[in-house]
């Protein structure tokens, strides 16, 4: 069932991106160019650009998918992503801008005068960047799969090729105006469908939202099974079936299905009466111990220790925004520290506005389109919803808008990440110039594409949450303590970054390979931020206190640079230049 407007919308967004990139718009890499540009960029525009790049596949598709499948606890992701920017504002916004570093490795080297630390931070930039790229690739894969009917890998490869080629040819990133437009496009792409669908179908019973309620069909619903699905019924149901169900070919017969697992082959048509329980595919079922309206997230198959898993996500998202590699660059386009604060506050406002809508879509799904619980992948729910709730042209157009916004999210975030990763690779690992950068863009894009092929089974929200967890366990302590604590030494910083980041990576990889699926292990390994962030901070503090003789020189000078208000800076530094690349 080809949604022609959706294909057209995706193609348009992609072509626009490539066209802007092909014009060879580059980021200026010298501080002076930035200073010139910065004075012309009003904080609102800057804030929209930052928000536009920050909102990725997880925000667009992942959160709504998680809310539908796992319950209201997934709202903690949207709260965390927004509050993460508030924490950034409170702790690091103005001092970080005043320091003037362009990337996190630059900050590390400038603050501590240590090449070893720089190498460690570069390694983590690569890890976090790739971890964040994987869900974008997956998002592209499932979007094209839904819209065009192509296999999963086609979307992944398509995104990989477009983004790598775009960056290698000249890079679209860096044009503030384009990124600003991205935010408004994404806001419309999720807000307009949400509001329209809400207006069209919002009235009526809210029974499926009642606490402890198992979802039921509120009216007679025909479900067409697109792909063979194994589903579970919570209660027995009487169903009219045409097609193959539980290996029996039926032609428009009414059967009584007991509670439990059943299999339907593709092409089957099932008609459920009002009040029948909603069948849920195996990937949409919550652990037995929680209800949909529970405000907790869970880890593992038995759903125990919800508080631990919830706090793990909260800590990861709250403190991970500081450590995302592609965010610091956006900061540098503010003229000074005070402007950085204002911009960051506007970002919090813009993000809050955006995150109202995934929740709306998820709630509408549970209320009015519960047959989406048969979807194999929760992440595709948002894309399917408009056509289901408003059959015909209007639903198609809304679906096209959502698909376009989703693809814009994948393109912009992937581009930003690929530039960070390729930049780190080419400058720090291979020590080359422009030509090396282009080669690295292609290499990095290829690795990301290949790595994204097997991650289909992990939800988008989970993958991005993990990227945040690694950032929170490594770069957040580095930046926060580096800004506020004079006595942090390079040894302490390196130890903290490696131990925190390393521990978090190991926990996540272990979870991906299915190491622990029950009880304490699942919660601690699945959402490791709850212990890796305190671990990183402690290691940094203790190691620094033990190695005080290697405190970097010029610490007072750097404190002045980061904390002195703008009005005094001009008189204290006769040259007035912010930090420039060595």
């Amino acid at each position: 069932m080809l949604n022609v407007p959706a294909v057209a919308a995706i193609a348009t967004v992609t072509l626009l991106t490539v066209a802007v990139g092909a014009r060879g718009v580059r980021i200026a890499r010298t501080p002076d160019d930035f200073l010139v540009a910065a004075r012309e960029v009003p904080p609102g525009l800057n804030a929209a650009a930052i928000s536009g790049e920050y909102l990725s596949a997880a925000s667009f598709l992942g959160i709504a998918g998680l809310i539908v499948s796992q319950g209201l606890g997934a709202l903690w992701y949207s709260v965390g992503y927004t509050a993460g920017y508030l924490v950034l504002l409170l702790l690091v916004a103005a001092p970080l801008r005043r320091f003037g570093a362009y990337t996190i490795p630059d900050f590390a080297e400038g603050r501590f005068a240590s090449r070893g630390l720089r190498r460690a931070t570069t390694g983590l930039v690569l890890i976090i960047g790739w971890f964040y790229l994987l869900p974008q690739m997956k998002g592209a894969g499932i979007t094209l799969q839904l819209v065009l009917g192509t296999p999963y890998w086609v979307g992944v490869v398509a995104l990989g090729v477009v983004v790598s080629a775009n960056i290698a040819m000249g890079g679209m990133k860096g044009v503030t105006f384009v990124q600003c437009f991205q935010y408004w496009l994404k806001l419309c792409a999720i807000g307009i469908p949400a509001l329209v669908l809400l207006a069209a179908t919002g009235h009526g019973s809210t029974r499926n939202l009642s606490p402890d309620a198992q979802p039921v069909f509120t009216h007679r619903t025909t479900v067409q099974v697109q792909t063979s699905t194994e589903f579970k019924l919570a209660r027995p149901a009487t169903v009219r079936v045409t097609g193959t169900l539980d290996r029996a070919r039926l032609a428009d017969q009414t059967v009584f299905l007991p509670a439990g697992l059943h299999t339907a082959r593709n092409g089957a048509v099932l008609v459920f009466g009002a009040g029948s329980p909603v069948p849920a595919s195996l990937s949409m079922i919550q652990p037995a111990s929680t209800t949909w309206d529970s405000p907790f997230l869970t880890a593992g198959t038995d759903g125990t220790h919800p508080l631990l898993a919830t706090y793990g996500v909260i800590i990861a998202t709250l403190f991970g925004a500081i450590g995302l590699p592609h965010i610091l660059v956006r900061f540098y386009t503010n003229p000074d520290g005070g402007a950085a604060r204002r911009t960051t506050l506007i970002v919090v406002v813009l993000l809050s506005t955006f995150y109202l809508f995934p929740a709306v879509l998820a709630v509408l799904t549970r209320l009015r389109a519960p047959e989406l619980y048969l979807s194999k992948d929760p992440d595709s729910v948002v894309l399917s919803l408009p056509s289901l709730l408003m059959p015909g042209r209007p639903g198609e157009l809304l679906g096209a808008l959502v698909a376009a916004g989703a693809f814009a999210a994948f393109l912009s975030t992937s581009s930003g990440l690929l530039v960070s990763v390729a930049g780190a690779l080419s400058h720090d690992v291979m020590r080359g110039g422009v030509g090396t950068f282009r080669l690295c863009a292609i290499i990095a894009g290829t690795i990301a594409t290949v790595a994204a092929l097997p991650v289909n089974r992990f939800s988008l929200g989970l993958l991005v949450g993990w990227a945040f967890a690694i950032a929170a366990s490594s770069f957040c302590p580095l930046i926060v303590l580096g800004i506020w604590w004079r006595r942090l030494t390079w040894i302490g910083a390196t130890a903290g970054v490696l131990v925190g980041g390393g521990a978090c990576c190991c926990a996540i990889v272990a979870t991906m390979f299915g190491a622990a699926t029950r009880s304490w292990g699942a919660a601690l390994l699945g959402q490791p931020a709850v212990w890796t962030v305190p671990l990183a901070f402690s290691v940094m503090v203790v190691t620094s206190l033990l190695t005080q003789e290697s405190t970097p020189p010029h610490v007072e000078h750097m404190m002045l640079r980061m904390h002195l208000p703008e009005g005094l800076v001009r008189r204290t530094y006769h040259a007035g230049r912010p930090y420039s690349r060595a």
Partner: protein
Amino acid sequence: MTSPAEHGAPAEHGAPPAEEGARRRKVVVWQHDQARLQHDVIGLGDVQSDTVYGRLLVRSLTRAQLGLSLMCLAIALAVIASLPVIMALLPSARKVTVAGLPLTLVILGAGIFPVLMAVGWFYNRQASQLEARFIDLVDPVGRRLDA
């Protein structure tokens, strides 16, 4: 304009700050057609020359800034981090509905965002005022001239 003090080489951490004698300067200030003398003022010159008083000033500034940041962070964290605990301790709270919508949805889906924005706005205001007060303390004349 205050004559800019010599911006000496930044002192090494651990090395003692510049001698106290460095701060005993007479600063000649021209304001329109008047000349004024400011004697022995602890201010910007100390910060620039990294004297004992300069370090004290900077430390008081960073301490105030950090205090403000941590206070606002504590408020935000108290609001955010207390919600799971409250929900866990009061199971009946989860059953509350507002206009048919679960309380969790209303709070986490919409209600908490204005709180975050308010904390951010409050922090920005206080931070700017703090910095303005520091500039007033350290370089009052220069600030007026700079306006």
